[in-house]
């Protein structure tokens, strides 16, 4: 059979799943198609590409990029502002705020967020920034946990992440974190949902290709939490995971669940070396 005649069933399946047929022309690197090669050639993106890792920024439209570049226009900065207020707001019976122990976040939190998620002995499993904040609240401040995706928790997360903006993502996946990393990896490569699609099928095999009108990114997490235009609001990485799971018609896991936290570590590790852009703007 001539090469150009793809199995009709397979072609139909690809259309059904919303994946544009990929012409598989490799130009540079092991997994780099023409679109990615174009991004690589653009000097504007020099700072956003590390090795074969492409920040979500390069896949965004120029308008979205402009919005992110200017801190005034970037609505994510509103969350950072919220977080700044929250940082020094006393809560709980211990009469403490974040600032009581950690002082000036610009100093104490610099470079912290890029190392998360990490193994947290108090939980006996991984903790991401949100978990860590809530742990501080219950242990040190004697305050109730903040609800996932609530304004104060998103704000604080954004504020802490913001202190590491521009620093390279550097999560560790050895030692105690290793089994959780393996779980996350397994999640990433497991097909799920009615569409029967795994994360890698979009974000590794087809990054740069189109999915409907969307541009498929590598699914890097260096911009999270992000202001997402589709949401018209600021949101966490786990909210994004949920969206992806729904997209393949799978039952999403709860935000903050172990499944998503393990996945978060794997996804962060994929982007190790990319500069943190939080709070970013994404479509």
């Amino acid at each position: 059979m001539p090469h150009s005649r793809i199995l009709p069933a397979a072609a139909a399946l690809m259309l059904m799943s919303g994946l544009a047929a990929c012409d598989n022309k490799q130009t540079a690197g092991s997994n780099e198609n023409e679109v990615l090669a174009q991004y690589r050639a653009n000097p504007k993106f020099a700072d956003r590409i590390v090795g074969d890792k492409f920040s979500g920024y390069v896949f965004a439209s120029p308008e979205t990029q402009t919005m992110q570049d200017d801190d005034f226009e970037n609505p994510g900065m509103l969350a950072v502002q919220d977080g700044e207020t929250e940082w020094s707001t006393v809560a709980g019976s211990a009469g403490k705020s974040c600032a009581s122990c950690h002082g000036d976040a610009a100093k104490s939190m610099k470079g912290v967020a890029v190392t998360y998620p990490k193994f947290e002995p108090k939980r006996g499993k991984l903790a991401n920034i949100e978990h860590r904040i809530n742990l501080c609240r219950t242990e040190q401040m004697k305050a109730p946990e903040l609800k996932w995706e609530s304004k104060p928790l998103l704000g604080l997360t954004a504020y802490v992440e913001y202190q590491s903006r521009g620093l390279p993502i550097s999560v560790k996946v050895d030692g105690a974190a290793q089994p959780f990393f393996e779980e996350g990896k397994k999640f990433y490569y497991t097909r799920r949902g009615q569409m029967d699609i795994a994360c890698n099928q979009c974000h590794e095999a087809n990054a740069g290709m189109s999915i409907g009108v969307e541009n498929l990114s590598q699914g890097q997490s260096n911009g999270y939490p992000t202001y997402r235009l589709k949401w018209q609001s600021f949101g966490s990485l786990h909210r994004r995971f949920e969206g992806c799971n729904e997209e393949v018609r799978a039952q999403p896991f709860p935000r903050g669940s172990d499944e998503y936290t393990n996945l978060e570590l794997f996804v962060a590790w994929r982007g190790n070396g990319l500069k943190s852009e939080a709070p970013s703007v994404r479509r």
Partner: protein
Amino acid sequence: MAEDIKPRIRVPQSAKKDEIIEIKTLISHPMESGQRKDSQGKTIPRKIINKMTVAFNGKQVFEAKLEPAISANPYLSFFLKCTQSGSLEFAWTDDDGSTYKATQAITVA
């Protein structure tokens, strides 16, 4: 939720006479369109910024009428030619009747 609504403005602090400057404004606001329904199927009432005005030394220099299709946290920017020093007064009008205000002085040399 009114306490969550914060206007932000960016105006150059000084300008040369007759210089054209860019004024940027952003207000954090949900811009609830009135078209959405909640989990009980009830319509979520419309709550948007419906008007935004800017006055320079009391004289109106900019006005915008905003509609429900405008996204959350509306960002508006415009250009202004400066002929004299004075203060810019910004006002956003909400559907519930409240107005959010901000002012900024500008020195024209």
